[in-house]
């Protein structure tokens, strides 16, 4: 979508030729960074330039920011899915280690990760196991107690939840913040999680722990406080462990909370919608903003608003055909999700059979189909034929879409083959040359196929731009250490 976005935004800037000034350079610079998938740098640079822009340029800047945050939201959703999967695998292995070398804290983090994955029953078991341990520091007992309360709450036992939360001593700012976070996750606005979080932060003084900041991010993100969330992220060390347990002189285990990955995705989604809505207030930019708003609402799971925005884009008479067709695919996806399945499938199939085959459009259809969890059986053969017939760059997006489809189906061998076909091998792991969401998918396919080092290499490169992936890297390293089978060989080359 980046390339398409640049085209559209360039057109928008062209429309504003009369207002062209140095301030437009800020948008162009940010767009270039966006195109290279340097989302953080792009957003921060443009945010800094925003106050100086004239009103006309500001609308283009809002559009650009909306696109940047949308890209970052999709990527962090990918990180979240990968993080939950790998952390669960790793923590389940760790929890099986009992006795002297066994970790006390694994029960807490496994419980929290299971909660994040929606396995409430199992989460409760591990959180209870953690809190039942003797000799725990009150702080960690309180933090676990907050999560255990959430577990009860999500398990429809509000009474047990309230009782559990009542035991948490909020005199400790860490515990107070943890409680604020779980109130947010439970949607209990009446408990004033934002007020609690702010108070806890104040109490913590000048150097709050990264654990506190992550919990505060949960609070802000769930309250829709986008600006505060974005500011907070600037302060946080996203690669820091939530807790490091020392088990003797030569054994330490670092634990991470994967909820932050989901919170970041939510924060970027909100920021995306917010800036795209601002951009849509400008009449000239509205059609382009609507196009992206359709995608941003879909990313946020709001089918109705996605339909409305996409419909608004399609109602513009002179919208370019490629974007128009993609919008029709998106509209069909939303319709499918609303239960209008036959109607949606007919649109997908009609567009998929267009001649000559358009790989980019076929990719969009496959992704829409997969997003709606629809049966893509009728479309897949056309897509496969088009991918095989095409060459090089033109079929890259289609191969990636096929790879994602196979990944969802659990056919990891084919997923790797297709995603590799869509990868720029000259810059194997570089996000500047490869869609980072594709790289996350490829890393997932390699991980599932137990090719850990391929997966780790992808994250190693990605960590230079997104330090938050440390929570995936550490767990994956742990899995690799436990799962590999080799003799201990080394050779000179």
């Amino acid at each position, binding site marked *: 979508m980046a390339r398409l976005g640049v085209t559209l935004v360039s057109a928008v800037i062209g429309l504003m030729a009369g207002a062209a000034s140095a301030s437009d350079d800020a948008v162009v610079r940010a767009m270039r960074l966006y195109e290279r998938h340097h989302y953080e740098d792009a957003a921060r640079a443009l945010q800094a330039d925003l106050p100086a822009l004239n009103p006309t340029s500001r609308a283009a800047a809002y559009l650009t920011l909306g696109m940047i945050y949308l890209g970052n939201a999709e990527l962090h959703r990918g990180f979240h899915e990968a993080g939950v999967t790998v952390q669960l695998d790793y923590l389940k292995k760790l929890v099986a280690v009992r006795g002297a070398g066994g970790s006390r804290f694994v029960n807490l983090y496994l419980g929290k990760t299971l909660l994040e994955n929606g396995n409430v029953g199992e989460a409760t078991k591990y959180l209870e196991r953690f809190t039942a341990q003797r000799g725990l520091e009150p702080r960690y007992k309180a933090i676990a107690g907050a999560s255990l309360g959430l577990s009860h709450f999500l398990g429809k036992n509000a009474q047990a939840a309230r009782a559990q939360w009542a035991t948490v001593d909020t005199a400790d700012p860490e515990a107070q913040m943890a409680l604020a976070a779980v109130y947010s996750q439970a949607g209990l606005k009446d408990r004033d999680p934002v007020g609690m979080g702010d108070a806890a932060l104040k109490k913590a003084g000048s150097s709050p722990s990264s654990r506190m900041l992550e919990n505060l991010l949960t609070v802000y993100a769930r309250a829709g406080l986008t600006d505060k969330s974005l500011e907070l992220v600037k302060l946080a060390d996203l690669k820091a462990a939530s807790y490091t347990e020392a088990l003797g002189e030569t054994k330490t285990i670092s634990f991470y909370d994967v909820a932050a990955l989901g919170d970041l995705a939510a924060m970027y989604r909100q920021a995306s919608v917010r800036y795209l809505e601002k951009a849509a207030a400008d009449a000239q930019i509205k059609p382009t903003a609507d196009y992206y708003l359709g995608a941003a609402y879909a990313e946020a799971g709001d089918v109705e608003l996605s339909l409305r925005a996409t419909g608004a884009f399609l109602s513009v008479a002179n919208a370019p055909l490629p974007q128009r067709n993609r919008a029709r695919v998106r509209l069909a996806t939303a319709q499918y999700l609303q239960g209008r399945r036959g109607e949606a499938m007919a649109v997908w199939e009609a567009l998929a059979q267009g001649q000559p085959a358009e790989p980019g459009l076929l990719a969009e259809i496959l992704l829409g189909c997969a997003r709606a969890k629809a049966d893509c059986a009728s479309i897949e053969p056309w897509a496969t034929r088009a991918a095989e017939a095409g060459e090089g760059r033109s079929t890259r997006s289609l191969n990636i879409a096929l790879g994602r489809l196979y990944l969802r189906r659990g056919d990891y061998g084919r997923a790797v083959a297709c995603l590799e076909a869509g990868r720029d091998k000259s810059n194997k792991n570089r996000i500047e040359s490869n869609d980072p969401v594709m790289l996350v998918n490829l890393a997932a396919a390699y991980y599932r196929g137990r090719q850990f*080092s391929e997966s780790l*290499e992808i994250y190693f490169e990605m960590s230079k731009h997104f330090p938050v992936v440390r929570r995936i890297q550490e767990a994956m*390293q742990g899995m690799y250490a436990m799962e*590999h*089978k080799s003799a201990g*060989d080394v*050779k*000179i*080359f």
Partner: protein
Amino acid sequence: MNKRIVVVLSILAVVVGTPPVSPAGPKNDGRPDGGTLGYGEYGRPSTLDPITSNEMVSLRITELVFNGLVGIDEKQEIVPELAERWEASKDSRIYTFFLRKDVMWHPKEGEDAKPFTADDVVFTYKIMMHPKTTTPLKVRYEFIESVEKLSDYGVQFTLKRPILNALAKFSFKVIPKHGPSHPLYLTREDPFVRQPIGTGPFVVKTITTDREIVLVANENYFKGRPHVNRFISKPFADQNIMTQALMFNAIDMVVLVNPRDIPELQGDKRFVLQPYNALSYAFFGYNLRSPLLADKRVRQAFTYAVNRQEVLDSFFNGQGTLVSGPFAPGSWAYNLDVRPLPFDPQKAVELLRQAGFAPGPDGTLQKDGKKLTLSLKVPIEKESEAVKRVVLAFQNYLKNIGVAIKVEFKEWQAWKESVFQEHDFDIIFASWVFDDSADISSLFHSAEIGAWKNNFGGYSNPEVDGLIVESKLTLDHEKRRTINRKLHTILAEEAPYTFLWTLTNYSGYHKKLRRVAIHPYKFFSFADEWFIPAADQK
């Protein structure tokens, strides 16, 4: 004798004396046999056996020619090879292997093929551990206390202690008792190392005057005859020529594509580019026996003096990543908190000053009247354009801080003798390639200093020795991981090497080759399953 062993022996008693069954024929999997696969290699290996060799080119050949008691499949599972099954005692100290009875050794010239038996397994272990055997493998198998033949098709290993991943260690390649000319040990002078016989899918047929190694299908391979008729290893000194040979159909496969050629191959639909993540890195290794290099500040200064990112970008199109220590970034052992040292020539100069060096009359640094002039030895097989540029860049970077480097290219075998046997060098440029274990013990443990051992630089640090030993003794994966992180930190600080980069690893091959699965380290482990459709066979 415990009950289990009695049962085992009873079973084996029935087996003893049973003649080998008929060797396997074709695979009968519906895929065609035939065709020749020529692959491009980085020079010819000095030895072709699995014991004396310590280089990747040999490893790939031995993978085609030999088998282990067990193998490791694509999903990291241990699978039977020469042993059809095994048992481990409850305390994980005794491993009993029940061998296949249908395995024959490749025939020696003018002789009939002989059956593979437990004698060969015992022989391999003993010859590997013999003090006179030239091998880097001893350190890997020091955990074995004893080996005992139970019958012709039963063999038992007793370990000194249980270890992590023990079964995988028995993937070592077995050689025939009737192979080497000396019954007790194996050296690089033994004819066996150049004309080996194994049990594997391919037989070493000839070595041509062009130094090509021709291997032919083993018709009696116990897993079924491999599909491809012939494998030919073709040596190339220059990576650029190798890719051109592939493009012009002179070869069918390149084991490692020159990073600069990836775009060209990627755009050509005749070829497949397949990544395989060998855990590897390039380095400048220092001889710590040299008084000039004994001070770690000097070695650290050299690292600060070289703009490694610039070198990587300029000569390898940026296709790789800088490393900060003794593990590859794709490894489970890499310490993510240790960052590569930055390019900082001022810091380099300051460190050298602290180490007692001052500029002499000609601008070269000196200490106690001795100039900081060092030799850099590079194997001639590495004399590709890119490598030449790397070493010349290194020379230039060090010249900028007052260090004189004399670059010397040497023939591969001569280079190895200088480095591993005579230790006659100051600095070398080379790469290590690791399997998944990321085991650095043979590289940095002080017991591994000596002729033909991997600690060529003579690095010795009691703390590192202690950690390596502790890592080997532990049965706890997380503890081992923590120890490796510590080792990474210490070795990054101590700088026995200037750790450089890990490069992008792609194999390139013609699309006519089918069912190609590549082992990330050993490469050809699954090559007996590869095939060429009849229409594409030469």
